[in-house]
């Protein structure tokens, strides 16, 4: 008896987390999975086993377009996050020699997280809006004759908002992987005649790939489920699966929303597995 207790003791350490996972993650997902096969009408949903929800989604032009639009956001946001984060991390890791400054500048990258998402999104409005600062500037400089419309409530605004929100999730892992690169490897490459670009291509990028992969997983999964930014920055113009699900819940089409959620989850998992297939991230963990 006491021996069994001794053997089980370590597991008590992870019990709370396991319970939280079971209660608030596994159980709800199972519920969603079940509900996605239920039937519904305008007033109520009824337990059943029907594939109609899935068939509706796969045959509807609107949902197909919404999925494609979501992928568009994922690709654009991922691309811009990478394009911004890699040079920033490179600068922090290789050009800032002083460790104190490295920490200060790295923390500076986290500044966007010091206020809430929604407030940050809303504060774009006076900046990008029709009467906003950017338009005033452009008009004042006589660069445009009429206010530029696509700055706000557009795909541009959505992507801008998400890049701004999620960029740090890319910077963190890439910076971390760059910091682990043995500086002697770079000296060795120089010693063998590699140019700056060759060092980047042959040594730094391959060794940063696991960091890029982890950052990409963060960004891709976050953007796949995006809903708040799309709603606030896109106005009524932009659609994403997340927003579609929210709309369906709003109109009480729970089984349809559940089916969309299941598909979204599956697609996201496929993307993550795809990234892990390309890059071995074990050395980063």
């Amino acid at each position, binding site marked *: 008896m006491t021996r069994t207790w001794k053997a089980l003791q370590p597991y008590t350490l992870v019990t709370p987390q396991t319970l939280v996972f079971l209660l608030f993650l596994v159980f709800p997902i199972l519920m969603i999975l079940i509900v996605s096969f239920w039937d519904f009408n305008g007033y109520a949903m009824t337990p059943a086993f029907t594939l109609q929800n899935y068939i509706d989604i796969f045959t509807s032009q609107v949902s197909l377009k919404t999925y494609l639009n979501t992928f568009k956001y994922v690709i654009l946001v991922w691309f811009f996050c990478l394009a911004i984060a890699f040079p920033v991390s490179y600068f922090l890791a290789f050009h800032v020699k002083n460790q104190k400054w490295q920490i200060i500048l790295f923390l500076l990258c986290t500044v966007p997280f010091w206020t809430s998402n929604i407030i940050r999104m809303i504060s774009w409005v006076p900046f990008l809006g029709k009467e906003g600062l950017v338009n005033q500037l452009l008009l004042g400089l006589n660069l445009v004759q009429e206010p530029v419309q696509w700055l706000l409530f557009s795909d541009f605004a959505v992507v801008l908002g998400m890049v701004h929100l999620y960029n740090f999730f890319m910077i963190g892992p890439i910076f971390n992987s760059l910091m682990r690169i043995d500086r002697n490897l770079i*000296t*060795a490459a*120089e*010693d*063998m*005649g590699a*140019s700056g670009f060759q060092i980047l291509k042959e040594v730094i990028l391959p*060794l940063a790939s696991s960091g890029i992969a982890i950052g990409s997983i963060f960004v891709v999964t976050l953007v796949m489920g995006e809903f708040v930014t799309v709603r606030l920055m896109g106005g009524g113009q932009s659609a994403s699966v997340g927003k579609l699900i929210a709309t369906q819940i709003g109109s009480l089409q729970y089984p349809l929303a559940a089916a969309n959620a299941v598909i979204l989850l599956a697609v996201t998992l496929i993307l993550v597995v795809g990234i892990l297939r390309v890059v071995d991230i074990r050395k980063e963990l």
Partner: protein
Amino acid sequence: MNSPVSTSSPGVTLAQESAESKLQQELAAQSSGVTLRSVTKKYGSFVAVKDINLDIPPGSYTCLLGPSGCGKTTTLRMIAGHEDITSGDLLIGDRRVNDLPPAKRNSAMMFQSYALFPHKSVWENVEFGLKMRNVPPAERSQRVNEMIEIVGLSQFADRKPAKLSGGQQQRAALARALVTRPQVLLLDEPLSALDENLRVKTRGELRRLQKQFGMTFIQVTHGQDEAFSLSDQIVVMDNGRIDQIGAPADIFRTPASRFVARFVGDNNIFSGKVSGVALDEQGAVIRLEVEGIGTFFCRGLAADTGMEAGCCVRSDSMDMLPYPPADPTAPNQLTARITAIEFTGYITRVSLMVEATGQEITYKVRSSEWVNQAVPEGQLVTLTWAVDECVFLSH
């Protein structure tokens, strides 16, 4: 212990011999000496290397030896081209290379812990230098294969460095450095990351490979054992200056300064005043008065009467006699009390103290001899030594 080095050691098998000897001849033929003339390195107002002059003959194995911060690594990195030279000239062969980038100097460097690219296989690591120099692929792969075969890693060519033993990593690093046919190989403490057992084995192999290729090797190390066992020539550095240059046996037997005497270890060092110099065919016998201990006669090249100087005696070159000595006024003897006796295996190490001055003395003796001699702790004894064992230290 099942050593990864010896079990997979390549040796020189007959099958490889022709390719090997051809490449060896090539490497040996173009291996060059290195000359430093009044080389100085400053970082702001801090002088890391002060006006050093050094000649490294082609085909030799030279170790830059000294404690950390003595300027040895800076010197090596200046030769490699990874540090700028503040003033002075650096020649590889007859060519002044001060302002050339590392890859244009015809030197190659082997790094601390080897710095093999972890994401590339052995083959790709060795290929790297040729690829960066735009050597055509056909020639590239032929040279890489040849080099990998010579260091005996053919069957490991596809492995990543992490899957190699320490000795194999060393050979991969050497192959990577030598594949570009450098005139000189620079080694930055390549053995310091290894544990003691492996270090002794891999350094033996390093020496063997250097002889095999007949190449100029310049290595930085802080371990005197390593320097003694590897080098043809040792350069002892301290505080950015060269203290002594010489063959290992010379450095060991006749250190030129107190610093060298202390650094090579096992020396008892005394300070005193020169009271007489007598020249003979081997140089000079110098008489040194060491206050509170006695009069020492030591060997040196020259000295001025009245100058403050020192001398050293190796702890294993002394004889222990009973106290009191037969002739209390005889030179080259001292009286000390035994404070500790340590049995360390082959050697027994006896610590003593000269009571008049508090100076600590170490006496080392073969344990088998000590058994017959065995004096207990706390006893007064007399230590004596021959004039030739006592080395004069001018500074």
